């Protein structure tokens, strides 16, 4: 209930405080307790109801980690390196993602591919997920849809090395079920004369 009053433009502010005994706090306390109690009771019975298969919406809290929330496929979580139809990596190691990355968390080592139509490919692609800020600039910079950000959002690990995602983790982790196929297909592009 304090009010701030400007006394003078150049002098200090004087704070006018309420005098003792001018207000009753007890009604406020009871109002707050009623709200807390109502919510508690509702959540308690909703939870029991949800155990019986009632509607979920009533109870927004999930019992993590037994229950896990599924984000939409458009959620920008952990990175995925896409693959070609034959299962090889789509990435051409152009390093535009590494150039665009504001957190400097992508490190790529490029090499010469034995197939001259592929020419360049990454022999190492690492993302330091602890440095990553999930901004999505890598996805935006990629000219061939080789890197995407997927709906996985849990990144637990016990030591530092588990946060250094390598090629195997990014492209072929079990959750991806053999890899996600990129929308850019080299053969189709060649046929179209590009």
């Amino acid at each position, binding site marked *: 209930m304090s009010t701030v009053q400007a006394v003078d433009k150049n002098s200090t502010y004087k704070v006018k405080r309420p005098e003792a005994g001018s207000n009753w706090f007890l009604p406020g306390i009871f109002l707050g307790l009623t709200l807390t109690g109502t919510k508690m009771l509702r959540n308690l019975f909703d939870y029991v109801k949800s155990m019986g298969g009632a509607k979920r919406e009533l109870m927004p809290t999930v019992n993590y980690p037994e229950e896990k929330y599924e984000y939409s496929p458009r959620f920008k979580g952990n990175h995925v390196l896409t693959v070609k139809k034959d299962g090889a990596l789509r990435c051409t190691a152009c390093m535009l993602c590494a150039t665009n990355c504001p957190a400097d968390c992508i490190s790529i080592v490029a090499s010469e591919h034995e197939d001259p139509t592929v*020419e360049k490919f990454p022999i190492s692609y690492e993302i330091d997920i602890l440095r990553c800020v999930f901004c999505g600039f890598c996805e935006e910079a990629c000219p061939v849809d080789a890197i995407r950000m997927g709906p996985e959002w849990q990144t637990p690990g016990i030591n530092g090395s588990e946060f250094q995602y390598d090629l195997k983790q990014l492209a072929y982790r079990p959750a991806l079920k053999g890899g996600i196929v990129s929308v850019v297909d080299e053969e189709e592009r060649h046929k179209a004369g590009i």
Partner: protein
Amino acid sequence: MHSSTTNVPMVKIQVNGQEVEVKEGSTIIEAFYQNKIDIAHYCWHPGLSVAGVCRLCMVEIEGNPRLQIACNTTVTPGMRVSNVSEKVKDAVKWGLDFHLINHPLDCPICDQAGECGLQDQYMKYGRNDSKMGEAKVKKHKVVDLGPRVVLDSERCILCSRCVRFCDEVPKTSELGIFNRGDRAEVGTFDGKPLTNKYSTNVVDICPVGALTSRDFRFRQRVWFLKDKETICTGCSTGCNVKAYYNKEGVFRVKPVYNAAVNGHWMCDDGRDIYKFVNRENRLIDAKLVSGGKTEHMQPMELAKRLGATLKGQGASVALVLTGSHSVEEYEAIVSYFKNDVGTTQIYHWINNPDTIDSFDGILIRGDKNPNTKGLIEVLAKNGVSTQWKSLTDSIGTGAVKTVVVAGPENQALFPDMKVKISELSKAAKLVWMTAGKNSELESLTGDVALLPLKTYVEKPGTFVNHAGLRQKTQPVTSIVPGALSLVEAVQLFRGEELVAKPVQEGEKPNEIGKGRVHNEFTLTRGVW
């Protein structure tokens, strides 16, 4: 290019409304180039003959109804030339469209991206979709032209710079253009390899990514590298070069124009001299082996200890020098040995006495040291004249007990390294100061001290080339942090502390360690 000799009459012309003066008989594009006015061009190169095939250097000449190419039109007094008119811009735009008909525009996997003439012009004039309905012509990709150059015919715009280079500079004429029309391709006759000693220059002059260097290919994107000028220490020519580096080390060198030394070019051997400066080839630790006990320590610590043992030892100490260090370093170490140690037993290790005077007529010299002249100069100034044989003799008789060796910097250029190690390790005590690592040196037993030195990219210095030209270089980057230059080593030998010189007023601060501003691209997002 910029020196105007007085006996050639000068011609005044107007370029984009600006009055400029050029030599009589020069072309319009030279007037642009000498006055640093932008003009689109691919086939013209200041060091090569005129071909006039790219049709991009179009200019409008007042009084001339049609546009002309600037590279093949001679200037006349009072000529008014413009390359900024709408007519010229339109011509360049359509010229570019023709270049891009069969160009794959695969910039993301092209090594030239970031320093590509076609990419620059495309961003400046084009940025439009191709007007061609037909599919692009497929040509050969990843063709090994020779041991150092890879060709991608699809990216080639047939400017013929590489062909003219091989015809005119090394005069070996390996390259040619085969077939006609849109099936024309650069290649070597009968598939013979491009093996001349200057072949990598064609990679530098290629305005697109058609010719790429086998050595540099895919190792770094060029925008991750910073560059700084230095000189090549591969031979006594002392070509001016730019070293491209990042925090991991040096990745390549490219020639820088200097009419007095190397013109526009450099040799292939010089392109490899960046390799020995990188960390994996360097001596990192200072090591002291004495009485069967090995101690590793900081180089500064070892230098201080060595100084205490060397002082006042007189003629029982001999110093061996190679031609790889700078004049300042020679002066420091020779004066230390003459005045503080009290010996004039200073020897010049000549690595290739048989070929020292040879010259291939272009750039490569047989003296594979950057500063032999400088060393001879400093030795003569200090009144030192010695023969190598007297060193081996006095080691044999025991007159010389301690041998101090400074160098060589690039051990690959010293074919007698092994012989010299076994020769000099006969001395009772051996102090070897070098930049590169060497397994034989490290496996030596007995009284041995190994002190890591800086290479030419890490220290300032003056180098005197074969013609007596003094070239001063500045440090490029820092690779082995603890390594010492000979000047610093001598300071520590004397018991002085190394103190960084404070930056004087008006002096440019040293830019070592100042890498790429990270994410300059992100910061300028949306700004064109």
